[in-house]
């Protein structure tokens, strides 16, 4: 049982330290990004380790060359913090002892106002404890008591005074971030606060016991306006818990006897002494120690849960590299033949008039242009084969053209289309059927330019079409770009010259 708990504790400590290291590494890299590939081995190790992205980031931080100096600095800063806490605890204990001494010191050296002494020993503690509890219930940003925050602040000031190297600064920044943020930081500061109070009260307790052992006191109470009943009730209230635990406390008679000035000789000082010691212990030291344990456990629990904030921009890149969303890209199969793009240009030259014979018009894989189909200016001069796509349409057109040797076959295609091998094949069979008398009209230039975006891309497309034409053995002299989406009068003139002799 004990064994497993220790192992669990060690693992948790390892996780907390790992996160601290990852944070320090992040701070270090924010100011000075690691050169590309410098963390290659660390990344590989992290990837291989599996686990969550956070685990891998921690693993990577451990694998970097900066891990050794950062861990050294973290340990050194922790040691300083620990030393500071010990020092503060000693100071707090001494302060408690001094307060106890003052509380038990009076002008005449023997009589001590009991309730006054109780108030000065436990008053401030009770008030601050209540404030802490109230702040605990009120949801606020305030973190765990002034003392604890002051301690952390002192530590920071102490550390910053010593001008550190960049590793030390990064470690400091990371530790401050972890200590001061979220509920974990709040509980940590809380446990520090309670620890210091516990030390203070324990110092007071020791001093009280020492003074009571070595000196003779007469405990009294006095009043100007209150009656004896108030003090009897107060004593009972104060003594309720100690007497329940078997400590002998003053009864009503003892209270009556202790009124100043009165018949003090009859009072038993041991009941007052034991009440003083018991009150210090039960209302002072023990509640604070309990609070230390509770807040420390909560802090530990919260630190265990306080994951790294992976949405920090400087985590984004390492996170992607330790658990990539694309783990591999590779060429599985392919021909090494480099694609050769045509660099042919469509020069705007006039296409020669058609040879004698019928002029056919055929649209391949196009929608009706805006000027209508057939294009204006062709109606009386051409035989319209319509618009088509697919094997059947192509064969139908070829059959018609084959029947009589044409003077010209005007094939209209759309520049928005990608000139693929299917287009080339269709053009080749049409050209053969037309005895080589094929003229290719490329339409839709404006729409194509809009789609392609840049002039360079548009020119690429024109060149690809020229290439497709050449592949179908159509001479560039027999290719032309005419936008049939333009107003009818404009296109009519351009098209007419292609179909009339």
């Amino acid at each position: 049982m004990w064994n497993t708990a220790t192992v669990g504790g060690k693992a948790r400590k390892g996780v907390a330290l790992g996160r601290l290291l990852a944070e320090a590494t992040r701070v270090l890299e924010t100011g000075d990004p690691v050169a590309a590939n410098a963390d290659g081995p660390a990344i590989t190790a992290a990837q291989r380790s599996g686990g969550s992205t956070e685990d891998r980031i921690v693993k990577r931080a451990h694998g970097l060359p900066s891990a050794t100096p950062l861990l050294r600095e973290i340990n050194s800063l922790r040691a300083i913090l620990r030393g500071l806490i010990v020092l503060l605890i000693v100071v707090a204990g001494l302060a408690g002892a001094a307060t106890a001494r003052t509380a038990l010191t009076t002008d005449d050296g023997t009589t001590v106002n009991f309730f006054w002494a109780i108030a000065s020993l436990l008053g401030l503690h009770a008030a601050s404890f209540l404030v802490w509890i109230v702040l605990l219930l009120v949801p606020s940003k305030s973190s765990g008591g002034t003392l604890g925050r002051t301690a952390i602040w002192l530590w920071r000031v102490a550390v910053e005074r010593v001008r550190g190297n960049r590793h030390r600064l990064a470690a400091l920044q990371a530790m401050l971030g972890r200590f001061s943020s979220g509920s974990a930081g709040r509980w940590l500061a809380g446990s520090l606060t309670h620890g210091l109070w516990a030390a203070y009260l324990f110092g007071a307790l020791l001093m009280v016991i020492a003074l009571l052992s070595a000196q003779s006191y007469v405990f009294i109470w006095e009043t100007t306006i209150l009656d004896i009943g108030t003090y009897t009730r107060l004593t009972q209230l104060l003594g309720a818990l100690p007497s329940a635990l078997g400590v002998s406390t003053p009864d009503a008679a003892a209270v009556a006897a202790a009124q100043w000035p009165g018949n003090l000789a009859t009072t038993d000082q041991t009941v007052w002494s034991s009440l003083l010691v018991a009150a210090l212990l039960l209302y002072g030291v023990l509640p604070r120690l309990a609070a230390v344990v509770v807040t420390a456990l909560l802090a530990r629990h919260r630190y265990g849960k306080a994951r790294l904030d992976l949405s920090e921009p400087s985590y984004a890149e390492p996170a992607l590299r330790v658990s990539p969303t694309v783990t591999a890209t590779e060429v599985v199969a392919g021909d090494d033949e480099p694609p050769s793009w045509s660099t042919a240009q469509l020069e705007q030259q006039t296409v020669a008039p058609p040879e004698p014979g019928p002029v056919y018009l055929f649209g391949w894989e196009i929608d009706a242009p805006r000027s209508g189909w057939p294009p204006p200016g062709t109606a009386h001069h051409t035989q319209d084969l319509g618009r088509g796509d697919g094997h059947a349409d192509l064969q139908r057109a070829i059959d018609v053209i084959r029947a009589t040797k044409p003077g010209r076959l005007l094939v209209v295609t759309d520049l928005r289309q990608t000139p693929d091998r299917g287009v080339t094949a269709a053009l080749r069979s049409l050209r053969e059927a037309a005895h080589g008398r094929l003229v290719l009209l490329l339409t839709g230039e404006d729409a194509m330019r809009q789609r392609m975006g840049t002039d360079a891309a548009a020119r690429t497309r024109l060149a690809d079409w020229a290439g497709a034409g050449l592949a179908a053995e159509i001479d560039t002299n027999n290719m032309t770009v005419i936008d049939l989406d333009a107003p009818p009068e404009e296109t009519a003139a351009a098209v007419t010259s292609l179909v009339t002799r």
Partner: protein
Amino acid sequence: MSRVPAVAVIGHTNVGKTSLMRTLTRERSFGEISAHPATTRHVELAELAVAGRPILHLFDTPGFEDSSGLLAHIERLRAQRGEDWLESLRAFASEAKLHAGFSQEAMALRQILQSDVLLYVVDARDAVRAKHRDELELLGRTARPVLPVLNFITHDTGHESEWREQLARVNMHAVVPFDTVVYRENDEITLYTKMATLADGLNAPLSQLIEQLRTARAALRRSSATLIAELLIDVAAARRAYPVKDEDQKASEAARLQDMVRTRERQAVDALLKLHRFADQDYAPAELPFAHGEWQQDLFDPEVLEQFGFNATRALATGAAAGLVIDLVAGGLTLGAAAATGAGIGFAIDSIRRYGKQVVATIQGQAEVTVDDATLHSLLAREVVLTAALLGRGHAAQRPIVGEVTESGDLFQRLAPTLRKARRQKDWSTLNDARLTTSRAAAIRTIATPIETAISDERKNTEEV
């Protein structure tokens, strides 16, 4: 599942198959993209992983070109060999001597026959042609589940319904709109969700993938907001000192400050681009407009009173109240005078507390230039718009985002209190060569949240348009 599910991205040539791969993998450099036909001449694998574990294999394939010719060729093969379709397709894909000029298509078919699901990419700007119908017929013969992906739907939707109708005819009823240039998170989730319904064993890995996608997008928004917040805090707290009344020095310090701000903005933009996995060429920013910022030293200057209006007013009120008490004590004899003095003292105390260091600097003859609100305002607006644009950009997009200065609406007002505080915190700015404090981190967190909301809103606005 022992074997990682394989998905082949297929389609006619130049419809955006490699673009889809780039967008799904967020790898700008995956494969090669051009306006030419047949740019991709190989099968390329991208392995998608969740928590480092391979979850899905995506294969990019060469596009179909002469689909009608291919269909006719395989039909002939089938008749010659007397086999069924699937066997003929297998034979064609594996035996080089049967390729007959269709080696690209054979390569794609080989991958198709080895895949669990096919993503059939369609350029929705194109009409449905016979070549597409022939492709669909061929795909129907491969006995593989097909999910059609309509690309370029946000450009012009002229043929989208036509495509949907055609796809329904061949029993492809689950269709996904997915623009590879204009990215939408929901489209990607829909893509994976529908894909999961098409084959056994895809549900679990794809749910994980969707989960990872959502987390990553949320983290991306948060990280972007943090980067912008850091930029704003750095710039708001930046300052350059010059000796009072030295106008030349002041001008050169102002110029230096502007340079620093420009460099800092460039850094932030680079970081944003890198975070979203884009590069320099994806963003063409306009010049950052500068108004001339200057730290006003005169604490009683009306502009300072206005700029820090709230605090000054409060201080005045407190001081005046103190004066009023003194007046009452003095029996009301000096009513006006004491109240006025009290107000002066109250404001002075508040100012010394807040501007103590400036006062000391003034005594030493130093003044400072800072960046004004207008510049901060436009920095904020630019970066929010840029981030929203990056969130809506597919990794296949080729044209750069053009940076334009726009209004950031009331977002700036929400950040103003923290930014004003930043102006007084010299050590909040990395530009000041100061040691950073933890309060800086807290301030960044404070303003990152509204920025994150603004980014999401901006993103929604652009998606609706």
